[in-house]
């Protein structure tokens, strides 16, 4: 096969510009096997995170749906005194699996580095940090619920209520750190010059929209009931489902991108 003639980037029409990434991205000294090692494993951490989070944080932690904000302190105290072992287990799991958002983010970053070598790496770096720092609200909010379940017999109802509230206020109101990578992925993906972009345009626009749609959470602290409260159909069900779908969609396209990049890189190296 004459690799000098066929298009370098998979999915590109013959007239598409051929642009190799910078040496520090290409890392020509590595074989393809070495270069792509761990990448798929990192990408797989997205769905693993999601499943584990749903089980631990969601089911065991009694967070799907959140306990309504208009429950009394007495009800919250009763909840912790009854369900403390489930919550301890759930939160221990959530704090463990929450960190998987980091390797998953890295797998996306690696794809973004290859999207358009003519762009600088600002958007890619923002995505890496934003996604990595998203671990913070995921894990730290869980520590509040964990604290409530640790010694519920001693703490007052009001304190227990405060701890449950605090976890939700953190996880809900820290959305902006996740908005950054979601918008970044979309913006970077839209700059793809390939005839068949690594991230399809609809996925880019969905990612941008999903990231910005978290802004409805701005209303969450103001309401204890109704659609804008933490348990509301909008600020819980819609917002979280939109985020879960985003995780699945992006994971899917990362897995699709990796073999294409393997081809591209192999062709670039054989041409060199």
């Amino acid at each position: 096969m004459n690799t000098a003639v066929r298009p370098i980037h998979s999915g590109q029409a013959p007239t598409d510009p051929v642009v190799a990434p910078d040496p520090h991205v290409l890392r020509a000294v590595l074989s393809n096997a070495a270069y792509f090692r761990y990448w798929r494993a990192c990408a797989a951490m997205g769905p693993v995170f999601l499943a584990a989070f749903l089980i631990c944080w969601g089911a065991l932690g009694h967070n799907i749906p959140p306990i309504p904000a208009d429950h009394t302190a007495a009800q919250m105290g009763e909840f912790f005194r009854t369900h403390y072992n489930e919550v301890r287990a759930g939160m221990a799991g959530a704090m463990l699996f929450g960190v998987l958002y980091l390797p998953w983010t890295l797998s996306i970053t690696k794809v973004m580095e290859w999207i358009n070598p003519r762009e600088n790496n600002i958007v890619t770096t923002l995505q890496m940090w934003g996604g990595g720092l998203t671990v913070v609200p995921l894990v730290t909010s869980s520590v509040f619920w964990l604290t409530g379940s640790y010694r519920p017999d001693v703490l007052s109802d009001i304190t227990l209520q405060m701890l449950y509230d605090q976890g939700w206020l953190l996880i809900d109101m820290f959305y902006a750190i996740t908005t950054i990578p979601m918008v970044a992925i979309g913006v970077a993906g839209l700059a793809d010059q390939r005839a068949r972009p690594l991230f399809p345009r609809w996925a880019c626009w969905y990612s941008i929209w999903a990231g910005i749609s978290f802004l409805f959470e701005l209303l969450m602290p103001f309401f204890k009931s109704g659609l804008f409260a933490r348990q509301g159909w909008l600020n819980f069900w819609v917002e979280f489902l939109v985020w879960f779908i985003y995780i699945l969609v992006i994971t899917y396209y990362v897995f699709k991108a990796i073999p294409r990049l393997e081809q591209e890189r192999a062709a670039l190296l054989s041409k060199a």
Partner: protein
Amino acid sequence: MNDVAQAQGSESAAPIIRSGQVPGVLVFIIADMIVFCMLFVGFMTERMGQTALFDQSAATLDVRMGVFNTLILVTSGLCVVLAVHAAHAGRREATRRWLLVSFLIGAGFGVTKLLEYSAKIELGITMHTNDFYMFYYALTGAHFLHFIGGMIALAVLWFMVGREPLDGRLAGLVESGALYWHMVDLLWIFIFPMLYLLGPR
């Protein structure tokens, strides 16, 4: 952003939407519209349980302001249509002119909205006053944030058309910005009657 736009380059092209490829911004727009539709249903459902309260509260809204707001947005919408038309014809000055006029007319919406809000707040009416006002502030507030985004888009496009060559790619961006602006208009077309006009006055 749009492969076809790039391929067409500086030919005076039919709008992107004509050639079978649509601006990806439509995904953003339809997603937003779906959520707003859910909010409409939420409002109408809540209204079912508190009809008298909702109608009473709705009667305190200033219909004239609402009408004026609608007229501002549709007129601003007309101007972006003309801006897109000029952009596809490669007429830079005309494009900028229509974008600017659109922005200036649109700014009127911001002014009237702030007047409306301050009038209500002065009367002590906030989003906690009752469920109708919660929806009133949340719906018009969310819409207002979209309006701000649209105004920023218009301004950015005005700058870009002034500084960059008005090729197919930039015309495509103007078209995308215009589509978003039409969404702002479209949402208000439904929000206004639903909040202001459904009850007896």
